[in-house]
């Protein structure tokens, strides 16, 4: 009898836990279904918002015209950590085009793996001549009040405008470069400067492929291009 009683208690426990888990999973699944679309939209619109800020005025949808650069070995090793996953698939470049479909600017993400508190993600917009049009920090964990001055859309972040690989010493002033550091925070700007420089070098190395392939014809070419990329991916 005593055995029977213990068994019943145990079964009750199991039933209770399983019931709680099943109900929880049901509602989580429901939430996932409801929120999946809005989350994708929110992420896309956040990216779009950032793209509009770093690209020159354009007539196309940079998200729809995305160009995927074929992965190169040196790039994935440079970016480190988190970046590996994205660069191993295909690095997306978002083009800005004028009415004739000519590329008037390109935006892509560059990643600084060596921020003060981990990775800093930077969206950089570059003109076809290789000069920086604008950059924006899209994600970071830097110290509030010190390193996070990089996110302010006024001030420091604008010192990148017009900079090219040639006309600039790509380092903070402490390292005899052209960029200010902040009081109390040198590591953060140093990492950002390094990452943007890396981004420009990537652009320089792939300039031909990025600028020549799609725009030689007008915009229609970009659509089949995007489709073939999707086909290759799946």
């Amino acid at each position, binding site marked *: 009898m005593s055995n029977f009683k213990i068994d019943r208690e145990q079964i009750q426990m199991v039933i209770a836990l399983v019931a709680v888990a099943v109900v929880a999973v049901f509602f989580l699944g429901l939430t996932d279904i409801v929120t999946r679309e*809005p989350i994708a939209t929110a992420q896309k619109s956040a990216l779009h918002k950032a793209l509009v800020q770093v690209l020159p005025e354009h007539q196309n949808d940079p998200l729809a015209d995305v160009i995927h650069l074929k992965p190169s070995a040196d790039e994935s090793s440079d970016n480190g950590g988190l970046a590996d996953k994205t660069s191993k698939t295909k690095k997306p470049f978002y083009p800005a085009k004028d009415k004739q479909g000519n590329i008037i600017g390109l935006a892509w993400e560059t990643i600084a793996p060596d921020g003060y508190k981990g990775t800093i993600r930077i969206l950089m917009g570059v003109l076809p001549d290789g000069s920086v049009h604008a950059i924006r920090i899209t994600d970071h964990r830097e110290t509030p009040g010190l390193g996070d001055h990089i996110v302010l859309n006024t001030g420091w972040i604008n010192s990148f405008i017009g900079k090219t690989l040639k006309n600039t010493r790509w380092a903070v002033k402490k390292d005899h470069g052209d960029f200010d550091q902040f009081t109390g925070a040198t590591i953060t700007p140093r990492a950002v400067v390094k990452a943007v420089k890396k981004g420009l070098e990537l652009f320089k190395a792939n300039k031909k492929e990025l600028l020549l392939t799609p725009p030689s014809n007008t915009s229609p070419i970009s659509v089949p291009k995007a489709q073939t990329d999707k086909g290759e991916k799946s």
Partner: protein
Amino acid sequence: MNNTIDSISKNQILADGFWHNNTIFAQLLGMCPLLGVTTSAENGFWMGAATILVLIGSNLVVSLVRGGIPAQVRIPAYITIIAAFVTMVDLAMNAWMHEMYLILGLFIPLIVVNCAILGRAEAFASKNSVSDSLVDAIAVGAGFTFALMLLGGVRELLGQGELFGYAVFGADYPDFLLFILPPGAFIALGFILAGVNIINRRMKENADKKAAEALTEVSLNTETTAQPST
């Protein structure tokens, strides 16, 4: 203790949850989100709002199933319930409040381990009716949010000279970094706790004085011995 809880009124639950047993001021629970996200009043508010949602959900469900879960497995069951609500709030914020979600980031999933929530499930919701548990969740959550906003506001004001993003001391306020960094959270919290203790002492002194006055009046008027109720 159970008996007294059963008999107390909703007003008492509200006052206890918001002030007398305030998660932060009285129990010093939930320090992780408190110190982590309170760099501004707005962050504090949304962190508090997310916590209230989880608290209401978990208190309601725990109170609903309070008869059906064997005592030995109640903690894993409560944690599962809380984790489910946290994930739902996390997904919802990601979907509909994307910008704030990026700021609060890691601290939303960490609501799971906010012991204040498990504490309410275990100490209150598992022993009380659904409606009482709802009132308790709202009171405790509001008290927690109030504390987060107060600390966030103090740190934002002293650290950046702003409140809810508006420059209070003018645009050229020199940032007081200490209050933005984690040590500032501890220092500000210490002063706030001192202030709360002063308020509590004043309240108690006033209550004592009133009780004493009432007592003397009663004894003067009727010369019967009233029961001192302190």
